[in-house]
């Protein structure tokens, strides 16, 4: 059986396979023309939130009767990646996180939106600078911010009062002290109530969310790892390690193993097993719903002792929307993106129904925005100029997850050499990022 025809056929197929589907023209219609046609919109929401999106789409179609939107729910990044790479994909895509911004912008999988923004005179200043930074990469803006998640501190007022505290901690030393005093242990040493959980792979206690409190930098300007050379990282990890050792790593492991799922009614904070916790703004609504008797407060995360002027900063990330390169009707797609991300009433409605933070300045001050005192904390954190995010990168979340793995190992005691380990982590992250360069 001759194999050569088979190989030649395979080579031909391979060449066909290798052609990416991202060759499209970047022509932009002149201003003032009415967009029309039908477009496909993919998003990741399901169930109740999907209905919220459907309502927004319905209003959009009312405002643009010549545009017809076909909505598909439950699509994730991997699906969009596969579809766009094979030449298909939706006209408008909505992604849960900012992981894809680096790659989709640099590879033109999502179109450059600058021509549209300039033509339609969209004011980018309506978004905070950090939000602008996570929707563009290396100068190319290929995404618009949708809704945002902001992270801060939740504290159990009852538990705090029992130990004599009336206010949440503002510095890391205060946090460590309060954590120790608020912890309750059984006679045999097992933890019953933890003042604050210092592990960094628990619920929303992650390096990404705490780094802004220490002003710890992830990447340098030329996208090399900054972790090994930034003293704030060492300070942050030392602080966490000290608290871990105070609790005892095995005790912490046992304690967390028995805690309820983060997204269930058995959430440790809901149940009063955690006096202080890091979490996102959406937790307010869950607490009202599932633990109405819990007296809780919200505040920004404490900051490193020597950075008291940065108090009020936090971590922000968000959903992003973009137009795929293969879109056959980019004008209509842009109309939808613009509506969903800048139309104030629509943004406020969605923020209210999904319980996330809206990203436009107009939406933030709108009186239709439902924000009680506890939710307002997060709006304030969002507006704080020191609030930061993890910088976008063409390798997605690779550097964050590599750092996470190192941090887990360090806190568990598997590795003990912090300076050496951080330098090694730098080197490994750089090598890993090189793989994709």
């Amino acid at each position, binding site marked *: 059986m001759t194999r050569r025809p088979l190989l030649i056929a395979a080579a031909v197929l391979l060449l066909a396979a290798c052609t990416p589907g991202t060759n499209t023209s970047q022509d932009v219609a002149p201003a003032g023309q009415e967009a029309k046609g039908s477009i496909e919109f993919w998003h990741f929401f399901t169930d109740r939130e999907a209905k919220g999106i459907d309502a927004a789409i319905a209003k959009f179609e009312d405002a643009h009767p010549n545009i017809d939107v076909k909505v598909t729910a439950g699509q994730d990044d*991997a699906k969009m990646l596969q579809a766009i*790479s094979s030449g298909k994909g939706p006209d408008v895509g909505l992604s849960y996180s900012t992981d894809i911004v680096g*790659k989709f912008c640099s590879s033109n999988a999502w179109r450059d939106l600058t021509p549209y923004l300039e033509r339609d005179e969209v004011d980018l200043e309506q978004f905070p600078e950090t939000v602008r930074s996570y929707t563009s990469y290396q100068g190319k803006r290929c995404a618009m911010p949708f809704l945002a998640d902001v992270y801060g501190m939740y504290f159990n007022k009852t538990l705090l009062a029992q130990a004599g505290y009336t206010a949440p901690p503002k510095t890391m030393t205060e946090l460590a002290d309060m954590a120790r005093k608020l912890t309750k242990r059984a006679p045999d040493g097992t933890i019953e109530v933890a003042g604050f959980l210092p592990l960094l792979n628990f619920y929303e206690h992650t390096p990404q969310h705490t780094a802004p409190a220490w002003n710890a930098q992830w990447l340098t300007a030329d996208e090399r790892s900054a972790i090994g050379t930034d003293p704030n990282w060492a300070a942050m990890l030392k602080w966490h390690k000290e608290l871990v050792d105070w609790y005892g790593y095995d005790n912490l492991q046992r304690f967390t193993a028995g805690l*309820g799922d983060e*997204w269930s009614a058995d959430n440790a904070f809901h149940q009063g097993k955690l006096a202080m916790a890091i979490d996102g703004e959406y937790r307010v609504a869950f607490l009202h719903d599932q633990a109405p008797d819990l007296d809780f407060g919200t505040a920004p995360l404490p900051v490193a002792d020597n950075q008291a002027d940065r108090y009020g900063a936090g971590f922000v990330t968000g959903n992003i929307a973009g137009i795929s390169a293969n879109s056959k009707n980019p004008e209509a797609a842009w109309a939808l993106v613009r509506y969903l991300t800048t139309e104030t009433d629509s943004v406020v409605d969605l923020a209210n129904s999904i319980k996330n933070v809206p990203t436009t300045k107009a939406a933030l001050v709108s009186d239709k925005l439902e924000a009680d005192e506890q939710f307002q904390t997060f709006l304030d954190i969002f507006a704080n100029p020191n609030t930061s995010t993890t910088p976008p990168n063409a390798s997605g979340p*690779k550097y964050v*997850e590599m750092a996470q793995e190192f941090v887990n190992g360090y806190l568990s005691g598997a590795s003990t050499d912090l300076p050496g380990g951080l330098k090694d982590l730098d080197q490994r992250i750089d090598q*890993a990022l090189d793989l*994709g360069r």
Partner: protein
Amino acid sequence: MTSVLTAAESTVDARRPVRRRVPRRWRHRLTVLSFIAPALIGIAVFFGYPLLAAIYFSFTKFDLLTTPQWVGFRNYVYLFAHDPLAWQAAKNTLWFVVILVPARMLAALLTSMLLVSLKRGGGFFRTIFYLPALAPPVAATIAFVFLFNPATGPVNGFLSLLGIDGPLWFDSPDWAKPSLVLLGTWAVGDLMVIFLAALLDVPKPLYEAASLDGANGWQRFRHVTLPALSPVLLFAGVTGVIQTLQYFTQAAVAASVASGTATTGGGVSSTFGYPEESTLTYPLHLYVSGFRYYDMGYANALAVVLFVVAFAVTLVLLRRFRAFTGETR
């Protein structure tokens, strides 16, 4: 190579008038082709093509969205010299191969033998034993992880009644993999069914002849049951190894549920490997590298290495257990 002509065949030939001078060899080949042709097409399209693509992509930098760029051995150098996670993942996967495959084979053998020996209620028990294999893998893993929750799950609750302080199961780096083995052995129904079909194929007279000859239970097992089961045993071993080298779903779901941030249908990749990279399997690392980090070329290099390992192990199994294939050639 001509097939061996038996005396019977040549007499058949002599009786039939020869209509065409088509050599027997070609007629035989055409016959074989008529049986195997679809499979050959399948091999070419669904194996040959992806294999060549994988080998090609493994030498490129490829992110699915732009044209692949040739980079030579860079991916392989990274794999073997600079990626400690790849080694951890390989170790985890090999652990599963060595422990999970024999565990499942043993469980399948014991349960199928038990079923064969049941006089009454066989159908009922057969269904019950098979039930776990019918459960959708994601839901089954979630249920299992929850049942084994160290503080609130019934398993540790039951153990504490016996005075045993249960381990942290899926939350312990030492127990996470054994817990997954328990899950895999619980869902052994599919393998059990195959063993059962083979056991039922064993003619009863063979057993009776053996016991009339004075063989006891163990000897009957060794000399009647085992040889009769050998083709499916080889099958179970080879496919077990190959499938365990691809072990993905249960490890991903168990890690994300045990880490306390459960979502259905696979979790966020930051929870993969929980706790402490103990459940990070090689295919999980491959998936994350290719689809989350856009290192598709590297993922293909990982795949090629996996393929080579699987191929080597399979060849060894097929060669060493040739006696087990029951081939009469």
